[in-house]
């Protein structure tokens, strides 16, 4: 909860001035997540629970900058198995949960303008808050590190009306190793809307 409050506070501080700017647009997306790399070693199941929201200003034609906030929850049941550490072996069913909060500065470049379909490439940089809980029998291990994050992406918007566009995008959320945990990376597939204020 404290993490969410921190995100919202930072978000409001940064978003405030943007709302007053000309050419502002908002992005609201439903997001699925597919773990990759070290994260996939821990959990393989695709997440169907996630969203991404952001705000952008357009400082020059075809170029947008802003901030994103996102949340994605992963979970997986590991069937009964035996885990060996040195001379010790432990068997049981594991339940693994991991949610990630992202907060990033974003930049987007649109490859075309004034078309119904407008492909774009994007890059984000910011922080990833990981909350990992591993439940093994009646025992629980909890980890919640911060990680530096980069978020390159590609996507396309489709004209719906003067103020709204449909958006489909793919983000590669790259978490960098922290003291507690390997980098937690995943692919995010987004479907949502762009809302323009003018």
């Amino acid at each position, binding site marked *: 909860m404290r993490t969410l409050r921190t995100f919202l506070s930072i978000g409001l501080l940064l978003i405030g001035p943007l709302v007053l700017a000309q050419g502002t647009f908002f992005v*609201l*997306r*439903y997001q699925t997540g597919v773990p990759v790399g070290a994260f996939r070693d821990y959990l393989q199941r695709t997440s*169907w*629970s*996630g*969203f991404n929201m952001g705000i952008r200003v357009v400082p020059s034609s075809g170029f947008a900058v802003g901030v994103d906030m996102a*949340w994605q*929850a992963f*979970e*997986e*049941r590991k069937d009964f198995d*035996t885990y*060996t550490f*040195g*001379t*010790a*072996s*432990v*068997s*049981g*069913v594991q*339940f693994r*949960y991991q949610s990630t909060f992202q907060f990033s500065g974003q930049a987007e470049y649109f490859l075309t303008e004034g078309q119904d379909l407008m492909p774009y490439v994007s890059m984000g940089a910011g922080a990833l808050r990981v909350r990992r809980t591993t*439940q*093994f*029998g*009646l*025992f629980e291990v909890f980890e919640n590190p911060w990680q530096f994050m980069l978020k390159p992406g590609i996507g396309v918007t489709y004209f*719906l*009306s003067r*103020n*709204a566009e449909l958006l489909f995008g793919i983000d590669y959320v790259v978490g960098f190793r922290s003291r507690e945990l390997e980098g937690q990376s995943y692919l995010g597939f987004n*479907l*949502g*809307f762009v*809302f323009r204020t003018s």
Partner: protein
Amino acid sequence: MKTYLLAAAASILFTGCSNLGPEFIDEMDLIYTNFSPSFNFQAQRTYYLPDSVVFIQDDLEPGELPEMVNPLFADRILQRLRSNLNRLGWTQVNDYMAADVVLFPSASKTVVVNYWYNWGMWGWGFPGWGWGWGWAYPGFFPPTVTTHRTGTFFVQMAYTKEIDANGYMPVMWTLVVDGLFEGTTQGILNRIDFTTDQGFTQSPYLNINAN
């Protein structure tokens, strides 16, 4: 635009909360084993198994005898230990002084069990060794077990021929089964069977059949 806003809001609502989690009691069971890497299991042949399972109590005074676990469950634990050991090539003997190893089964519902020494954990006195001795774990570390609403049973395989001058008995293999002590009697018995068998499955060094 309102339509799209509603669609966007609906997509966020579609983002559900977790619905994954243990559905059955046996999904909470854990089976832990550990052993001394310096001990030559292959050189051992015989074991002694008591005819009861001690119920570990924290408030036991020195000299006071502990309760024993309900024979319905204790007999099942002992029977399962016996059948697994026999299957792996061990021979049961009735004289603990003649046995290569002695198994000390115990069970607990207490909050924390000090695995290094617990008075109720057979430390109250086993025939031949008197009372007040503790456990030594050569080359490995046992867990501290914290239990909540759980039933935990422990088995210590001790090499009684090497009790040191301080009265510490070396434990060469340990099995801890932890889970919720809930469900039907038959359900608990089935879980005792499965978890005990699993303890031996994940301890292949106990197989002395090849000798």
